[in-house]
């Protein structure tokens, strides 16, 4: 599935991958892929600009470390990022409940 399909949801999904703790870029991409059952398999290189954008927006915080002799940048949610993730989850629950009510295979109420 391409990034365009995720437009509007990518920020929330990236934030969700950090809910359990800090991750580096490739781990975030892998969390997206495995967490979606392989459906959200973005080109890895395109995840990094999205992370930089979230960092500039103050939703995540990046920090450098050295792991196995190479520089690694890991990201963690900020307080604003946690609030935004919570908002995104609430919005998604409302939206998905409404869509399920309309598209779910249930009989429609009879028109009066």
């Amino acid at each position, binding site marked *: 599935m391409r*990034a365009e399909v995720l437009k509007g949801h990518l*920020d929330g999904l990236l934030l969700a991958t950090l809910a359990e703790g800090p991750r*580096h*870029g*490739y*781990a975030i*991409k*892998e969390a997206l892929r495995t967490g979606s059952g392989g459906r959200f398999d973005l*080109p*890895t*290189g*395109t995840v*990094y*600009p*999205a992370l*930089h*954008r*979230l960092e*500039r*927006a*103050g*939703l995540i915080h990046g920090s450098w470390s050295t*792991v*196995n*002799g*190479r*520089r*690694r*940048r890991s990201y963690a949610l900020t307080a*604003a990022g946690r609030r935004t993730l919570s908002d995104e989850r609430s919005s998604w629950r409302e939206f998905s409940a409404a869509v399920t009510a309309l598209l779910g295979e249930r009989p429609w109420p009879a028109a009066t």
Partner: protein
Amino acid sequence: MAGRNLSDSASSDAVADYLAAVTAKLAVPAAARVAITDELRDGLLEALEAHQGRGCAQAQATAAAIAEFGDPATVAAAFGPELGAVQARRVALGLLVTGPLVGLTWIAAVAVNALPPWRHQLIGPWLALPLVGVALALAGPALALTVATTGRLSRFVHRATLPLTAATVAALAAVVADLTLLGIITGYALTNSESYVWAPVVFAAGASLTRVTVAGRAARRCLAIRAALT
């Protein structure tokens, strides 16, 4: 497999070539290029090690990791809006810092020499002074828009060119203001044989000349990045 360095020089070269192909397309300062390269390299090597962990030989794992990252043009293009926003913000913050400083140098030059605006007079070349006010009136909102759309509100901005356009307007307005002030002071000095305290005038003119150069270059850079995004 974590922690294993590339033992195969062909794999090492392939990773280096890929990173060079991506970053060659990025119009960023050297420090930012190094940071992006380091971050991508770590991700590539993680991907490579993951493929090796699934049983691939190093050459296959390298090819798979590079394929997984996406072609260099796609990755570089994905960085475009972000780098544009960073450039626009840098220009805006630079203008916000230098604006008051340059303004103070001119106020000092005018005050020390009791030039016409200090006597509440707009005569001769000073008649052009309102043009500086117009430029500043344009620059203020443009700077506010740039800072707002490249900070916390950036998630809600879906036109990547907007901050670059606003930053360009602000930079060009600064150029217009500076050129106007330089023109005024040159014209006034040439047509009036008063004795001046030159030091603050030269300092103000130098500050404006520097900002004309820097802001003009920044505007051109913003426009180039903007053109690449459209």
